[in-house]
């Protein structure tokens, strides 16, 4: 019996050892994972009405068909930027702003290699539904590779926003305004900048029950006169989600250029170095928000920043040294004259 037990134990150990060094045999994946989708959809739908729309999905892989499974998930914000936090778990509770109950999409779609497919979708808002903003995301999953230690899976997401018109609670509060450094690893406000700030940031807390996209302008006043104006402070139409503290950034000087993206011409805006002299600048924000039929609200705020480049600080230091030296020389000369041309005697 003892011998039998030891034989079984040895066999089990051998199996375990084989498992460690031999991963599951790989099976070639059948689906492509190259897709082109619409990243965002926006709708305005009155209660009791519905919208039927289509979405175009392309399979960019010319060799493999693309098998996609579709599902609707909720999302919120990751931080104060516009990056969505996708609520991917199956057991996550539905958000209060979820569009899930109203959004209908097919469960799956297969697109031939190099082909395009248009799928139907609809958003139906029940009669009597309250006004506000509702949003969810459509996830297109391409399926995972089967085998190896690390399997890969590619998914695309379309963010779907719907406004239900009516009387809503709109409340944005200005939390911060200033020069914004987007160049550093973690972009943040700067009060004193040794590099020319290229962006102005303003942080708004959304305490209402709708998403908000403020518009307006910013004036930049130099301490010795001169003014620059930023006419469109939200050129991307960026949103502050419900409950989000959102930092919007806008270029002090904007360069707009046409780029060729996948065969189509698109406008791309980038911040370029603005014309700033060293010194203090005062920022004046005048922003507006408010939906159709609701009170138009205004946000007014001021902030300051200093642009003090290294060359300017060195120049000021040298100037101070020169002035100090001149004053010291003058004092020494005066003392000598008072002493009859003789240096002061040491006691």
């Amino acid at each position, binding site marked *: 019996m003892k011998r039998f037990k030891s034989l079984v134990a040895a066999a089990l150990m051998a199996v375990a050892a084989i498992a460690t060094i031999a991963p599951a045999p790989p099976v070639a994946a059948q689906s492509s994972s190259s897709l082109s989708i619409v990243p965002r959809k926006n709708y305005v739908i009155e209660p009791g009405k519905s919208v039927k729309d289509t979405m175009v999905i392309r399979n960019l892989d010319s060799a493999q068909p693309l098998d996609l499974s579709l599902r609707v998930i909720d999302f919120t914000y990751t931080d104060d930027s516009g990056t969505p936090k996708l609520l991917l778990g199956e057991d996550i509770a539905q958000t209060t702003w979820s569009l899930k109950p109203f959004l209908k999409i097919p469960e799956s779609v297969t697109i031939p290699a190099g082909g395009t497919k248009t799928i139907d979708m609809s958003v139906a808002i029940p009669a009597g539904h309250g006004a506000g903003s509702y949003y969810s995301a459509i996830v297109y999953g391409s399926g995972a590779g089967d*085998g190896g230690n690390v399997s890969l899976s*590619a998914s695309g997401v379309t963010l779907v926003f719907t406004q239900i018109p009516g009387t809503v609670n709109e409340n944005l509060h200005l939390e911060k305004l200033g020069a914004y450094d987007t160049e550093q690893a973690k972009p943040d406000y700067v009060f004193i900048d040794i590099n020319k700030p290229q962006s102005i940031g303003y942080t708004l807390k959304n305490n209402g029950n709708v998403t908000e996209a403020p518009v*307006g302008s910013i004036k930049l006043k130099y301490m010795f006169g001169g003014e620059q104006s930023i006419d469109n402070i939200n050129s991307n139409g960026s949103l502050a989600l419900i409950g989000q503290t959102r930092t919007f950034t806008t270029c002090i000087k904007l360069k707009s250029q046409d780029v060729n993206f996948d065969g189509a011409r698109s406008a791309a805006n980038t911040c370029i170095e603005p014309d700033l002299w060293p010194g203090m600048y005062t920022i004046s924000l005048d922003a507006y928000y408010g939906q159709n039929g609701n009170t138009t609200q205004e946000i007014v705020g001021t902030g300051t920043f200093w642009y003090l480049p290294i060359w300017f600080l060195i120049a000021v230091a040298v100037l101070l040294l020169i002035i100090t030296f001149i004053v010291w020389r003058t004092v020494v000369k005066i003392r000598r004259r008072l002493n009859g041309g003789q240096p002061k005697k040491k006691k």
Partner: protein
Amino acid sequence: MKHHVFRYHAFFYEWRRLVSGEVISLGLALFLVVSPVAALRFDQRSLTMQSSLPGVTTNYTISFQYMSPDPVGSIDLLFCYNPIPYEACVTPTGLDVSDATLTNQTGEEGYSIQSKSTNHIVLTRAPTVPVGTTISSYTLSGIKNTTDTSSAFAVRIKSLASTNGSGPQIDFGSVRGQATNGVMLETQVPPMLIFCLAEEVQDNCAGTNNNYYTDMGTLSENSTLTANSQMAVGTNASGGFAITADGTPLSAGTHVIDSPTVPTESIPGTNQFGINLVANTAPAIGTNPEGDWANALASPGYDQPNRYMFVPGDVVAYSPNVSLMKKFTVSYIVNASKDLRAGVYTTTITYIASGRF
């Protein structure tokens, strides 16, 4: 001291004779009465468009609360893209108020249209001091909506003492509106998000090597197992893109190789599973993001050479705005301690490309 007091008294006494007390009083009174009062912003401003469909002719109801207790003889309404009163006014594309009629008014009443043009209306009445704090509303019919659904527009409102919209303003403020076609507001040249993923991908996602798994070999306490995958991404959406990495650390049944939650060096002999998106020398794996556009970046934490981490749900790469195609190489490292239980350790990492808002 006494001498100084007498000198001051003598000096001011002389001036008092030159400028009498009556003159000083009159000056003060004039200062108080004539000194300019800063214009106030109308409160409770709103615009209700009966129809927001682009290009249709509809009614606009503009409401606000008068703030200053001064006689108002006219209301100036200027329709522009920009709500800021001192900015240049650009007329919203397709908007036309030249056929507008004033069909209803509540609160402060008695107005009629004095003049109108494509984007400008002046309401006039006999100058009267606004009474009470109720909200006044004015409905203008026959306004043709802007055809531009991509931008909001504003009505710049100001009240004036004159009856023809000239002279200094009393109160001012703007209301916002936007034409929407009820289906899609985003009218960018078709926004697209292109994304592909495999062990190897082409820059423009036209092809991949169709391999979606990696066999990393046998775990050992003395060496680090490594692997690479690639993904290419680009978008013409003005908000940019984000790539989220979701999944679980390597596991075999209930045994898990944990991942550092902050960027950490690869240390053989410890249990570690991590990734990053840049070129590394320890171990020598990966490459830096490839592509002309500099605005698509590996996220902080995943952009440090020779440092690895993995937190499920983290955004590992992003662009804040339009980005042409960019290729990211993801490097994977796995280390194992000598105490790690035997088993086949596997995971599935899902990379999710999304737009931003």
